[in-house]
């Protein structure tokens, strides 16, 4: 009778709770299977050793800890000692990769003995197996990843070692510590842990009383470690601990769900909630051999679910059957539960499903019996398109188990979906507000170029604007620089899927003042793609006051988009889970951005761009820049000058065109940023952390500079037009980034842009090139260059030969200081026949300002190639000449006519003699100086086969 009543009561209980005990469980297929293979660096299989393998989700990453045997060195007694270490792995690209910290993924416990670490004393002299007490487990506490394990010394059985490991917040180091006790046998040991607010609750199994209890710890920020706080009992049924999760109810109360069991007979699900209370329910699936539970659904990839518009918080209980199957495996089951939003309501059971596993991947017993673990993982969808309902992050729930040989298998299930919040995506340009969003985004911009803005001019603007109304044909000073930069950017970038999170939000808005955007390396699933961006920048400067006050910077900006995500239950695309938000950053390309900068700022530093004397544009004001010009022998692209009398139109036009030039620049960013992944607030898993980020972009800029400059001046009648200056001259300088040591580069945080700058000149003198003429084809003996200064005094001449019309540090082939001389004969420059060279001269005015000549091309006669190898040797004695005669000795290689010329420093021929049919060989002559006045002269000896020029000084 008694038994009958019990059975009836059980049946009534089951009926009232709606659980279907009679029907068979449904089936479910994992969305993905994982099978371990060679993982460690030595090519050995990593195996699930006893109960020493633990899994944990940390910031969206899936971590695995595996106790692994390692053969140690011989110790005192000459025998090999096995040693064991937990190795750490993280899941990436479908496999577990070693999680390296300081180059190693090994956790080292124990103590140092003779420069080697031992967990046990090395003098034991035996080979021994790892003897684990209970199960190793991992958890997250205080934004850190932790690992715990308990070991008994197999020889000295009274010796127990509790191993703790903590990963630092910045992920750069593991802190591994041990607690040793010498009591035998162990009375209690830890079986699990969970963060409860500020506390760490560890669950302890007492082997004497056969009960569970709780030991609480707090985190000591000074010691960077936990400290014991308190201990108390807890009423959990069963004698084996599965796992624990915590969640927050609608009122943000911390609640807990536990799985415990008595293998292979019974399982229990227990709940702890401040509102709903504490209670346990028997586990109504197949009697379990081992249990574990994890938050998240397993139905994300399945249709046909009933709709629960108000609940979205599910957890899953995984279990292995207690009874072995007839193929030497155990069956894996998944029980689904959901948590109603009503704080007083208890979690509800949904269904049981048997998980179909590959026949070759059976769950089996390992040395200590069955083991089963669970964790979650976040994986991105395809982000190439932001399409509502499809784009987002997949959350996966994973169940891991071993086979008899310790192979590790994982069944992955797609869980809930993270989908973009409509209209929430913002671009990197929107995020460029440093005050609001910090500087991280802007620091990824590359400064490609700087221009001084509108060319300098000095105009009385009120007069100008009063005279030149729109109805009147304007008198304008037009500086038009076309195609000043046409940058083709070929960029190859690693497209990192990254997660960010909101560090602090003062309100529940998407954006707040405290928001920062961080990158994570949660995913190594990178793709490399390239795109070519061509932009053409044309800056036309109007003749108005405002155009004088702004320069522009040209940036290459990675186009980054931030997309906000919320989690949606797999069955409901309309109701996101409350308190869930994630950010995802996506690099979609590179574009060019022009930024206007006040001309008074660096590097312009021009306080009065419209001053009457244009002081800000002059070399003596922009001294640092001018010093770089002189030091690096940088010539202007072309001089622009204009002189204006009091009446009549004056027009001066200068057109400078240059061939295109390429500048290649490569940038890569290694960025250390904070990261964080916060899973829904309902399940308090996420925490902010620091992590390393690898965002690398390789950009090749092919920049074309077409410096076509057009200047026109028309209809200027008188000074009353508003133009202040009667004479005006300025040069356009181009500071190429890799060709000189420019003063501004050190000030731009490592950025190396090009810079087109204007400098107003005050030197009225100009240098006129005399000979050779433009485009001359010269013979070797005709390499004599002459020039003169006009309209003023110049001296300290420097002579340059360049490969480019624009003489600059990268193009200069030959440079010679000439002092006050206005001619030079090249004795030590070897020109390549047939190739076009450019020569130019720079002179210095008394005020220290430079004046440049134009650059003029010349070509060495190709026929002279043969003769270049046969120079004429000559000697003069005495030199300086003290009388009216000098002795000249010279040698010619071949018979021919020999000319002897004496030139002054201006290149004017003073004396010339000729001797025909001179035979090959050495000849000595007396040369009459015919009353040359004291000074410096050039003696030129030329023959059919060559020429030589000697400096001759005639003394008093």
């Amino acid at each position, binding site marked *: 009778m008694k038994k009958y009543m019990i059975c009836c009561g059980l049946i009534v209980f089951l009926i009232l709770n709606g659980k279907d005990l009679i029907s*068979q469980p*449904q*089936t*479910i*297929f994992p969305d993905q*299977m994982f*099978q371990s293979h060679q993982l460690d660096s030595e090519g050995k299989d990593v195996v699930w050793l006893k109960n020493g393998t633990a899994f944990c989700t940390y910031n969206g990453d899936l971590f695995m800890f595996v106790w692994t045997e390692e053969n140690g060195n011989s110790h005192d007694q000459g025998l090999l000692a096995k040693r064991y270490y937990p190795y750490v792995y993280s899941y990436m690209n479908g496999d577990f990769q070693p999680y390296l910290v300081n180059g190693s993924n090994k956790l080292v416990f124990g103590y140092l003995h003779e420069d080697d670490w031992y967990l046990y004393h090395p003098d034991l002299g035996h080979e021994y197996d790892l003897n684990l007490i209970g199960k190793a487990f991992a958890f997250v506490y205080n934004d850190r990843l932790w690992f715990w394990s308990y070991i008994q010394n197999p020889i000295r059985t009274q010796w127990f070692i509790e191993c703790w490991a903590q990963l630092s917040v910045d992920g750069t180091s593991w802190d591994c510590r041990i607690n040793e006790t010498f009591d035998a046998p162990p009375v209690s040991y830890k079986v699990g842990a969970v963060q409860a607010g500020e506390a760490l609750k560890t669950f302890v199994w007492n082997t004497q009383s056969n009960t569970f209890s709780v030991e609480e710890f707090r985190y000591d920020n000074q010691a960077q470690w936990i400290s014991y706080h308190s201990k108390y009992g807890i009423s959990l049924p069963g004698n084996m601990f599965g796992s624990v999760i915590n969640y927050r109810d609608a009122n943000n109360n911390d609640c807990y769900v536990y799985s415990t069991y008595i293998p292979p007979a019974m399982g229990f699900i227990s709940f702890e909630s401040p509102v709903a209370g504490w209670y346990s329910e028997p586990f109504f699936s197949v009697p379990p051999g081992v249990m574990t539970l994890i938050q998240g659904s397993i139905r994300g990839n*399945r*249709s*046909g679910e009933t709709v629960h518009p108000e609940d979205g918080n599910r957890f899953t209980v995984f279990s292995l*059957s207690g*009874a*072995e*199957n*007839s*193929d*030497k495996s155990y*069956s894996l089951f998944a029980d689904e539960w959901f948590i109603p939003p009503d704080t007083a309501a208890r979690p509800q059971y949904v269904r049981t499903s*048997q998980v*179909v596993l*590959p*026949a*070759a*991947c*059976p769950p089996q017993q390992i040395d200590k019996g069955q083991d089963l673990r669970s964790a979650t993982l976040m994986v991105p969808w395809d982000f190439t398109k932001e399409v509502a309902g499809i784009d987002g992050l997949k959350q996966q729930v994973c169940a891991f188990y071993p*086979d*008899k040989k310790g192979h590790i298998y994982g069944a992955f299930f797609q869980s809930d979906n993270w989908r973009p919040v409509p209209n929430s995506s913002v671009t990197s340009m929107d995020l460029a507000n440093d005050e609001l969003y910090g500087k991280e985004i802007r620091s990824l911009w590359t400064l490609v170029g700087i221009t001084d803005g509108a060319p300098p001019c000095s105009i009385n603007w009120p007069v100008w604007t009063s005279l030149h109304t729109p109805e009147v044909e304007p008198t304008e000073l037009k500086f038009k620089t076309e195609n000043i930069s046409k940058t083709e950017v070929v960029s190859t970038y690693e497209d990192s899927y990254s997660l960010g999170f909101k560090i602090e939000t003062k309100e529940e808005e998407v954006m707040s003042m405290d928001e920062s955007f961080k990158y994570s390396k949660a995913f190594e699933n990178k793709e490399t793609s390239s795109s070519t961006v061509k932009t053409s920048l044309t800056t036309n400067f109007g003749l108005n006051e405002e155009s004088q006050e702004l320069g522009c910077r040209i940036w290459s900006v990675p186009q980054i988009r931030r997309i906000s995500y919320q989690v949606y239950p797999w069955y409901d695309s309309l109701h996101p889970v409350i308190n869930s938000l994630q950010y995802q950053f996506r690099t979609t390309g590179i574009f060019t951005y022009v930024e206007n900068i006040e001309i008074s700022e660096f590097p312009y530093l021009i306080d009065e761009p419209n001053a009457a004397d244009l002081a800000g544009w002059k070399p003596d004001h922009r001294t640092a820049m001018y010093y770089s010009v002189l030091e690096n022998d940088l010539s202007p692209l072309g001089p622009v000058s204009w002189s204006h009398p009091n009446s009549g139109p004056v027009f001066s036009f200068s057109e400078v065109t240059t061939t295109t030039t390429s500048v290649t620049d490569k940038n890569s960013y290694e960025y250390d940023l904070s990261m964080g992944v916060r899973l829904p607030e309902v399940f308090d898993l996420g925490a902010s952390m620091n992590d390393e980020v690898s965002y690398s972009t390789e950009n090749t800029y092919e920049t074309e500079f077409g410096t076509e400059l057009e200047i026109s001046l028309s209809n200027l009648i008188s000074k009353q037009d508003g133009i202040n200056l009667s004479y005006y001259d300025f040069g356009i300088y181009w500071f190429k980034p890799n060709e000189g040591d420019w003063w501004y580069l050190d000030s731009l945080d490592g950025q190396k842009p090009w810079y087109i700058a204007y400098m107003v000149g005050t030197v009225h003198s100009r240098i006129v090139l005399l000979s050779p003429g433009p485009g001359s084809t010269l013979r070797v003996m005709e390499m004599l260059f002459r020039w003169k200064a006009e309209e003023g005094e110049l001296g300290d001449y420097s002579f340059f030969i360049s490969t480019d019309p624009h003489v600059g540090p990268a193009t200069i082939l030959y440079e010679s200081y000439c002092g006050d001389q206005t001619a030079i004969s090249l004795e030590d420059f070897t020109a390549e026949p047939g190739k076009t060279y450019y020569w130019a001269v720079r002179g210095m005015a008394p005020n220290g300002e430079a004046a440049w000549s134009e650059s003029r091309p010349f070509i060495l006669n190709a026929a002279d190639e043969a003769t270049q190898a046969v120079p004429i040797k000559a000697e003069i004695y005495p030199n300086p000449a003290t009388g009216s005669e000098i002795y000249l000795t010279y040698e010619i290689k071949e018979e021919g006519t020999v000319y002897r010329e004496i030139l002054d420093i201006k290149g004017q021929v003073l004396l010339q003699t000729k001797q025909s049919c001179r035979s090959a060989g050495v000849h000595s002559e007396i040369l009459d100086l015919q009353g040359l006045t004291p000074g410096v002269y050039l003696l030129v000896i030329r023959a059919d086969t060559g020429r030589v020029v000697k400096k001759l000084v005639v003394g008093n």
Partner: protein
Amino acid sequence: MKELMIFLTGLAFAVNVCAQNNYQEEQPFKEKFLLELNYSFLDADLKLLTMTKHSLWDGQDFGTLELDQDEIDSLNSFVDYKDLLHGLSLAAGMVLLDKPGNKWYIEGHLTIGLTRREYTVINNKSKTTDLIINSENISPWYGIGFNFRYHFDAKWGLALSPHTVYSFGTTKAIDDNLNPVVEFMDETRKNTFDLSYTWVNLLASFAHKKFTIMAGPGFYLCYSRNEYNIVRTQQEDGQTYEDTVISTLKSGTFINGSIQFDWRFNDHFLFSAGAGLSNDISATARIVYFL
């Protein structure tokens, strides 16, 4: 007690009656060829020899898992593997030796027929029947057998009967509780088997008129190989998931006690029935037509 006394009395009477007849060498039958209609039954408890499992899921090869000897022994300790065979066959043979004055009789025949097989796996730990495979189609059955007899006298003799039969087939009638059907997936399951059954009976025979009774030990071996293949296909994307389990088994015991009863009721027809008893049960019934 009463019934036993009646049986023993009757048996004594029959033996006495038979013993009173002197052995007279009977004339051998003239018929040399024979045709036989045969029904065989076998209910064998097998032992697992090997089991391998291979999985190819969505292009990912999970390799082949082979159970080691410890695992095999463990399975044999709590799992029953049963093979139930029903075979109906025709045999053709001839009398190879049956000469007057020769105490030897040799007969040989070839068998061809059909069999129906049911293979069952029972897990005694979980008390579940994990697998039942029925050959829904009748599978072919081939065999060869001999009968060797030596007559000590007209009554007593010794018989040696080696036989072997071989059957094979493929079936999709599978009831699998270990690998349940998965929702939203199409699947095909098939089991391909090979089976051979060889037995040698060493029987002492006693003949009286048209009847012969034989009894003695029988030695036998039943060997089977099953290849069980499951292919599942996702309805949504067409991805396939394939599992193959290959197991080989053999009979758990090799000796039984055999009895056989022959009734040659005229020159042309013989009826024979026999059974082997041990952990396994076998039975045979046949009608032979001599010509």
